[in-house]
């Protein structure tokens, strides 16, 4: 914290008021209602609600569809993180390596970051359509690809659609991380170790750990939440619900099924998962301050 500060006064609260006001009405209030939904059940005719303790939670744990969505979410975020981080790192290392055209490469690789997931999904749709999709026909010739029926193939479809734009974000952060490494460290390592591949894994990569860690969390949250737009514009859960993330399933149960109790309980489960991830995120961010 700052050594020199203003004394607390009413003006401090004037500065806080706009954000706190918005958060209270549009964030805290809905969260409280989410908890209320999760512990109550509406009767069939919508006349009243009843407090049911953990029934909604027990119900979702008993529901095989919940665990199918759970499994898909875990696999999906793991694979997307792995693919986008490794390709992003590979490209960043090469871009950091070249002398000419560094900024041109940066520009040419940064822009997919700005495209909305839903737009990426609609585009992916065209490449995986049965009628004229190039990738559909390429994969179909290779192993009889058919995402309408095969769970594995629909995973492939969503992994490609979901990874494409996220490579950009990984590239930007890794490049910034590489450029932050001090010149003297690199020069010293060049004298000690002639093998550039070994040098990368023993010197450069450990120095990139904070960036890697941060990106893992960014990628996981992307796979959890931002992929909603991709799924809703591509498989919509096809073949039969195997490609729904937890967020997508909660939305469908609440919106299509009008089951707010179940949707609330599912949201709270997600909050716990995100809480778990965010604790790590904070440790990284706070750790970075001490490091600098």
């Amino acid at each position, binding site marked *: 914290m700052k050594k020199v500060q203003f004394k*607390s006064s009413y003006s401090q609260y004037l500065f*806080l008021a706009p954000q706190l006001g918005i958060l209270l009405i549009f964030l805290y209030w809905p969260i409280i209602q989410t908890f209320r939904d999760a512990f109550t059940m509406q009767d069939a005719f919508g006349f009243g609600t009843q407090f049911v303790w953990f029934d909604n939670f027990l119900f979702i744990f008993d529901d095989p569809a919940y665990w199918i969505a759970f499994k898909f979410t875990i696999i999906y975020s793991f694979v997307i993180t792995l693919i986008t981080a490794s390709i992003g790192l590979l490209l960043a290392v090469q871009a950091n390596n070249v002398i000419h055209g560094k900024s041109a490469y940066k520009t040419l*690789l940064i*822009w997919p970051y700005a495209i909305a997931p839903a*737009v990426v999904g609609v585009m992916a749709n065209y490449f995986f359509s049965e009628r*004229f999709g190039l990738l559909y026909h390429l994969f179909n010739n290779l192993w009889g690809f058919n995402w309408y029926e095969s769970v594995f193939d629909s995973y492939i479809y969503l992994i490609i659609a979901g990874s494409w734009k996220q490579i950009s974000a990984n590239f930007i952060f890794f490049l910034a991380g590489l450029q932050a490494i001090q010149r003297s460290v690199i020069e010293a390592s060049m004298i000690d170790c002639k093998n550039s591949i070994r040098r990368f894994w023993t010197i450069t990569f450990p120095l990139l750990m904070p960036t890697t860690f941060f990106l893992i969390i960014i990628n996981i949250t992307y796979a959890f939440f931002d992929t909603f737009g991709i799924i809703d514009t591509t498989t919509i859960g096809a073949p039969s619900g195997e490609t729904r993330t937890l967020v997508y399933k909660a939305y469908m149960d609440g*919106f299509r099924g009008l089951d707010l109790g179940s949707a609330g309980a599912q949201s709270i489960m997600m909050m716990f998962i995100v809480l778990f991830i965010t604790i790590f995120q904070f440790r990284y961010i706070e750790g970075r301050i001490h490091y600098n």
Partner: protein
Amino acid sequence: MTRLITSGFSHFILFIGILIMIVPVWMIFASSTHTGLIINTQGLQMFLGDSFYENYLRVLLYKGGFFKEITALKMFLNSFIMATGVAILSVITSLMAAYALVYFRTKYATLLFWMIFVTILVPLELRIFPTYSVMAELNLVNSYFGLIVPISASAIATLFFRQFYKTVPDELLESAKLDGANTWRFFIDFLLPLSKTMIVAMLIFMFVFGYNQYLWPLLVTSSEQYWTVVMGLKMMSGSIVHRFAFVMMSMVPPILIIIVLQKHFIKGVFQDK
């Protein structure tokens, strides 16, 4: 010599990376300049056709949607209003909140800090139905206010501004106090000019964030008059080439902003000096 070989290898890898990014978008663009007949008989195209003006003009001006009430032009206007609103509202409130957190001494500092930052844990997707009921109770469904404000209920920019303020030397406040600046004067005359890069970066970030929203506009706009571009993608009718053209146009504004303002964006987010 080895230097030449390794740098040749680097260029090659980067070239492939760029191809993976550009080719899909290029193919949709090239296909959007053909007629529907060509796409349906020959598939996606690699080279430009000659229906560019015809297709794009029709998409911009044609009244689509279930009730044939909205043009793509209106959707772009809505998206622009929403994205600008989100950017300005969240940046202003975050600047002020971060200032209050960093520059004031109070015994409630930790409590206030957590009250704001715990909100990062709960993205809109996790509280979407209750947020919708709040909007319905307040009669804000189908309004720009309803599109903008819940998306702006985010403390991510506050986190960035807080980090930035912490790097500002203490001497700045000391000298401002000697000049007799009060809390508002210090904020407006001293701190804001210093935060310019960070403000621009956050405006870009929140604009793209607001523009790219899909689920929330889908839920909160039952009237076609408030449809945005990204959600409209799923709603638009028309032939396949018109959809290609619509997809292409939908990605232009955020990509343009990121490319043109790239330097500011990267400078702010990574606090490069």
